[in-house]
């Protein structure tokens, strides 16, 4: 691996930047591996990286039906935070935030993690009560979160309109200063490059078409569009297509796949200092380092696999953005797109063993998976390597739906999040 540093950039510059090599090999599938990850997004590539780095499994592969980072990793609004209500969620998401903090150093790849603060707006008495409860619960769990008055919120984010003449005036806000954003593509590329350097094969354009099982029903291999791959361990990290992939193995999970859209504006000079979210009026916004406003909203109403949604969802979001930030009213929007997110009944993920021996699944991240990429990948790798969950992901099992131990962030947030 060519290490990146200011010196290496300078040195390559002297030779007109001609000496750079591809950041990972274009691998072809081998006949067999110790483990195979299905899905080359951030979660899957990260799991491969941690399997190799922390568990010594280097004879492994990531198979991806398209190109890496082309699914929800490349389609999200890059918000990172850990201010979730329940203890289990706080542990999982904060594990992730802690890994984000030095991820660029660990991967030797600038993922541009920017803890610029995530501010969540309260617009009614219910919001105020719920967010204050979140603030207290988070503090008990060692997760930073603080309550702001409308004036303090405006001080933190000057473009914010705290006037009383809007449809849903702001009554306060919860601020997590350690939250922020990161560069989504760099997360996939950084994990891919670091995993490749440890010997992991990253195999693109390789779609799983079936599972091979032995006489006892345990995983023996994968059928793919590029041939049979023998392996005893398969970790599925396929986001919106998890139901389809696991269906091939005869495993059904409580998931529904919905389109989630996002959009960006034309790039402008730095104008927006933080991330602002409003669950109540369905909008969140930040400004990328490239200068675009990155805007997202809730899912479309219906299940779908099309990776697109209705324009009325975006216009509804922009109504809210324009009311909250009047200075953006004349901004032009450049692009909008959709991704397919797999949603569980309690809006918490599943990172667990499945009923099929040797088959593991990391799914159900719904609308909020990007923030969890490093933490999720880290505990998923543990689960695959040791055939048992890490204490952090143990509660995020499949049986919780049968046994009634939901981690009901859906009820806690009252919206998709």
């Amino acid at each position, binding site marked *: 691996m060519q290490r990146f540093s200011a010196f290496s950039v300078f040195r390559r510059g002297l030779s007109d930047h001609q000496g750079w090599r591809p950041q990972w090999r274009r691998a072809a599938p081998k006949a067999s591996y110790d483990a195979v990850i299905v899905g080359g997004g951030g979660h899957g590539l990260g799991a491969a990286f941690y399997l190799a780095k922390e568990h010594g499994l280097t004879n492994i592969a990531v198979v991806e039906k398209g190109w890496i980072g082309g699914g929800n990793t490349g389609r999200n609004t890059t918000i990172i935070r850990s201010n979730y209500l329940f203890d289990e969620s706080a542990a999982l998401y904060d594990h992730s935030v802690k890994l984000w903090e030095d991820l660029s150093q660990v991967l030797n790849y600038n993922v541009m993690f920017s803890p610029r603060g995530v501010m969540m707006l309260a617009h009614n008495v219910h919001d105020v009560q719920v967010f204050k409860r979140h603030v207290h619960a988070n503090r008990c769990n060692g997760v930073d979160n603080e309550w702001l008055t409308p004036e303090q919120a405006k001080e933190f984010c000057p473009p914010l309109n705290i006037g009383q003449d809007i449809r849903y005036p702001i009554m306060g806000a919860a601020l997590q200063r350690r939250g922020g954003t990161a560069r989504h593509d760099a997360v996939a590329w950084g994990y891919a490059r670091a995993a490749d350097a440890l010997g992991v094969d990253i195999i693109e354009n390789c779609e799983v078409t079936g599972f091979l099982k032995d006489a006892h029903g345990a995983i023996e291999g994968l059928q793919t569009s590029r041939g049979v791959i023998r392996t005893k361990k398969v970790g599925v990290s396929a986001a919106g297509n998890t139901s*389809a992939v696991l269906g091939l193995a005869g495993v059904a999970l*409580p998931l529904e796949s919905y389109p989630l859209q996002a959009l960006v504006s034309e790039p402008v000079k730095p104008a927006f200092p933080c991330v602002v979210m409003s669950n109540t009026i369905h909008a969140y916004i930040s400004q990328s380092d490239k200068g675009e406003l990155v805007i997202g909203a809730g899912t479309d*109403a219906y*299940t*779908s696999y099309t990776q697109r949604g209705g324009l009325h969802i975006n216009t509804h979001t922009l109504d809210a953005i324009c009311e909250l930030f009047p200075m953006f009213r004349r901004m032009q929007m450049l692009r909008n797109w959709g991704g397919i997110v797999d949603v569980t009944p309690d809006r918490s993920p599943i990172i667990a063993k499945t009923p099929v021996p040797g088959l593991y699944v990391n799914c159900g991240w719904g609308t909020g998976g990007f923030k969890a990429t490093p933490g999720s990948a880290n505990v998923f790798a543990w689960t695959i390597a040791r055939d048992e969950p890490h204490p952090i992901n143990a509660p995020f099992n499949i049986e919780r739906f*049968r*046994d009634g131990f939901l981690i009901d962030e859906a009820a806690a947030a009252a919206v998709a999040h």
Partner: protein
Amino acid sequence: MLLIQCPYCGERPESEFAYGGEAHIARPLRPAELDDQQWATFLYMRRNTKGVHAERWRHARGCNRFFNALRDTTTDKFLAFYKAGEQPPALNPIPGATR
């Protein structure tokens, strides 16, 4: 935005409708006799079909009645609309769609 054919009111924009999830999930007649797994299956398990999906819609900003539809979730094209309580109409095989 989808165009949806309410069986009672005709074709209207999606913004008049509320999505009702997967169709043809009957509430158990004797819930007390179900074990935990059966109850969880009724509550939470959905086909999440990639292909032709039978689903409920409600004309929330119209006649407010529930009805069913068949939609291909890989294209979002509607294939049929039918009233609640009716069985889904038989479809000619659709190229590329799986049930």
